[in-house]
């Protein structure tokens, strides 16, 4: 929830944000009315992917950066469906 509060305060100040979070905490996106959230199907502590999984980390980041520019209202959520995996 800490990052949720930071996101809300930043947006209030006019600073656009995007949050990347693991699925276990995805309920925060709606519960805290976050502006832009990417939710991954990854295990807690590893929201962008497994150690060394450069390809997956890039995929998640590109989704987040795309959301920064494409979202037009609060509450925009993109859920990525790729399951957690070890680095290929």
């Amino acid at each position, binding site marked *: 929830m800490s990052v949720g509060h930071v996101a809300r305060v930043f947006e209030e*100040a006019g600073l656009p944000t995007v*949050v990347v979070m693991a699925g276990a905490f995805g309920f925060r996106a709606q519960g805290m*009315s976050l502006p832009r959230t990417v939710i991954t199907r990854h*295990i807690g*502590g590893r929201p*962008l992917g497994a150690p060394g999984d450069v390809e997956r980390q890039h995929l998640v980041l590109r989704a987040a950066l795309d959301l920064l520019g494409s979202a037009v209202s*609060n509450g925009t959520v993109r859920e990525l469906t790729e399951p957690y995996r070890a680095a290929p």
Partner: protein
Amino acid sequence: MTIQAVDPQQIAATEAREAEGESFEAFKKSFAYGRRNDLLFKFIKNLSDEDAAEFLRGLLEKLGRTIDDGDLGRLYEHVYEWNVRGYAHEAADRWQYDTGPFAPLAKPLSECTLGLLTATGHFDARDDPEPFGVKNMTQAEAIPRIMEFIRSEPTLSTIPLDTPRAELRVRHPGYDIRGAVADPNVNFPIDRLAELEREGVIGHLLPDAFSFVGATAQTPLLKKHAPQWAGMLQERGVDAMLLVPA
């Protein structure tokens, strides 16, 4: 990430009382700041006895199959699904908002300065925030002090992007840091962002990234620190922020 109130001393006392005839309830709790502490699996204590038993049964059943075919995917999926169920109760906590602010991006990202701020507990070893005045606090030393972290105001660490990787540290009493120790990019993606900057996807990265321990006092964070951080970032010319919880 919400950290439920726990008192390690109370847990230890309870465990001592039950050492000779441990209940399943005590067994579940022992994974969350108890004698079997494992922050990856601390969610077990949030499950009913029936669900916790089903989680463990399923884990062993899938492990047995993986021994034969080496497919780790089913184990990851099992842990993920129960990870989600283990934290579902937090959806009804006090921090609920019906509406929220929204600041549009003013220009294409390829022309923006992007910043990174995480609640993962990363810091530069040469600028250790030294929680509670303790020098070189280890993760093992931080974990039993979870309640002190939760009651304390946050400290924002500034981490130059060119920080030697050998100097980059992570310490956080609320989550399993093993993945982050192996590769900071799992939740502090400085290398991946630098690659996207070189590709031109991002105009510029702010030369410093920022991190704090998300297990912290929420009201001071909300009322005092986050507004200060927003002002500091805007003064430094940031156009947008990537935020990552633990």
